[in-house]
């Protein structure tokens, strides 16, 4: 047993570990936050006091209830169109979760498959995939987003597709690297000797061994994707209004910052921050737990 493993993954990794003790040191707070956001997203209809998309122009810019002029009718105030900020945050949780998770899964699926195929088959397949990732890197995410938005039109699902298509390369690179080292391992060689087909080996032997890395990367990418979603909104090609996406709220509300309508950006900002922070802390933990080798983002 090396010191490295000990220092990173304490307590010592003895082969006989109960599943429970495996998760004994899980970071509780981030997990609770993520579950909380997920619950809010699921029960948004029950939780939200108002319709998130419909407001009244006569009730614009009401501050949160504890400030002068605020009322308990709108606990966290109202926005530029008189919509309830709390309700929008609650429904925003749903959109952020859907956008975040599906985009990450989408990107992860493409990237993992291409990474495995490219890493395992090598040769011209590898070259094509790697050239493709090079090309992708040269096209900034935003360029893509606007192109795609122009072609397919903006919608929540298109944003998911855009983010997925943009970020698959990170998976491809990491997974490919893993596969290259897995290829040299005994069990893969044994499988080859045993006469398994390439596809069987990739599916049965390689995939289960890289899935941990993909999960860790996915947790870390969740944050990246959510920030990217907000940035696309800032550039006017994000989730279209009036959907209450957090990124859109942050971007729409930024105008109010200078006027003193701080609640328009601070609340969605905190929500995004909590979600991304939690995902990242959890991702860091998972990385240590599942895959100490995975260093790059």
């Amino acid at each position: 047993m090396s010191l490295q493993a000990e220092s990173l993954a304490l307590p010592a990794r003895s082969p006989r570990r109960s599943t429970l003790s495996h998760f004994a040191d899980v970071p509780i707070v981030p997990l609770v936050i993520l579950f909380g956001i997920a619950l809010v997203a699921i029960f948004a209809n029950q939780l939200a006091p108002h319709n998130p998309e419909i407001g009244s122009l006569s009730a614009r810019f009401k501050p949160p209830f504890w400030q002068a002029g605020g009322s308990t009718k709108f606990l966290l105030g109202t926005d530029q169109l008189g919509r309830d900020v709390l309700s929008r945050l609650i429904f925003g949780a749903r959109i952020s979760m859907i956008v975040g998770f599906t985009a990450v899964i989408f990107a992860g699926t493409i990237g993992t498959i291409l990474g495995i195929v490219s890493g395992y088959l090598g040769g011209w397949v590898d070259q094509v995939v790697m050239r493709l990732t090079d090309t992708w890197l040269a096209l900034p995410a935003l360029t893509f987003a606007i192109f795609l938005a122009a072609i397919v039109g903006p919608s929540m699902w298109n944003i998911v597709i855009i983010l997925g298509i943009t970020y698959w390369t990170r998976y491809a690179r990491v997974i490919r690297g893993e596969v290259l080292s897995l290829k040299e391992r005994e069990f893969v060689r044994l499988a080859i000797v045993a006469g398994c087909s390439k596809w069987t080996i990739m599916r049965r032997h390689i995939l289960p061994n890289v899935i941990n890395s993909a999960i860790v990367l996915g947790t870390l990418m969740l944050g990246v994707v959510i920030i990217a979603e907000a940035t696309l909104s800032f550039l006017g090609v994000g989730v279209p209004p009036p959907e209450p996406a957090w990124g859109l709220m942050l971007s729409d509300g930024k105008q109010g910052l200078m006027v003193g309508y701080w609640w328009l950006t601070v609340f969605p900002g905190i929500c995004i921050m909590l979600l991304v922070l939690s995902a990242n802390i959890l991702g860091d933990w998972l990385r240590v737990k599942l895959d100490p080798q995975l260093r790059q983002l």
Partner: protein
Amino acid sequence: MKRYIGRRAGYSLLSLFLLSLTIFFFVRVTGDPAALLVEPGASASDIAAIHHQFGLDRPLWVQYGIFMSQLFHGDLGQSFYYRTPVMALYLSRLPNSLILAVAAMAFSLIIGIPSGILAAVKVGKFWDSAGKVFALLGLSLPAFWVGLVMILLFSVYLGWLPSSGSGTPWHLIMPAFALGWYFAAAHMRLTRSSMLEVLGSEYVKLARIKGLPQWFVIAKHAFKNALIPVLTLAGINLVLMINVAVVVETVFAWPGIGRLLYEGIAFRDFPVVQGVVLMGGAMIVGVNLLIDILYAVIDPRIRLEK
């Protein structure tokens, strides 16, 4: 190694060619620049006139041929919107982008590396958590928001720094920080984990067994090894910074390349989009080669594999 680099360069040229093809056709699918140069309601003949002026009335493959032959002569064509050569535009913006990227990179490394090391050395202690939270905050807040809050705080309330524009080092501080923070976080993270890995390595253990003082172990045996992945990432990030700075450039009215590209897309200025993306691609290729060479300088394992 020369042959290796040569082959790599060959592949990179291939990706650049693919990129030119992709971007050329992609940009033409997205819309008609003429529609943006006239108000809605303009006549069809007006629009046809613009098409003719820009050469958009010719077959696509002819347009691509012209584009490629110009490219061969180092000419990226003429901007539809600015009516000036794209290369000149690009070069006029490049210094700004470079200054911003280098300053942002300096910020991110100056903050990222020492605090990453600190977080790794004091694992599980206050500095580790502080470093982690600082790192993750940079990742958790969109740059446009950080930028606006900074303008509000340092320009409007405190009056210390100019709100926007370029020209003096004072103008550079806020955009460089806003851009650098996100990357600082990434660099700190990588420094931390790479440092942890190196600190957990057998040779660092051996160095401590030798009785070397802690700081010496960190400074000599750990730092240099841990730096390699960080430098690699920094190299790639430097190029990314040039290409993705659009948000920061927009907020701080910093006249860089990100903004040029963004406007190019918004105006369907095909030559600008093609030019900027290709130049960006060329830079990434260049930096990747540079990293390979740098690697060889730092790491004797590669240097000697002739």
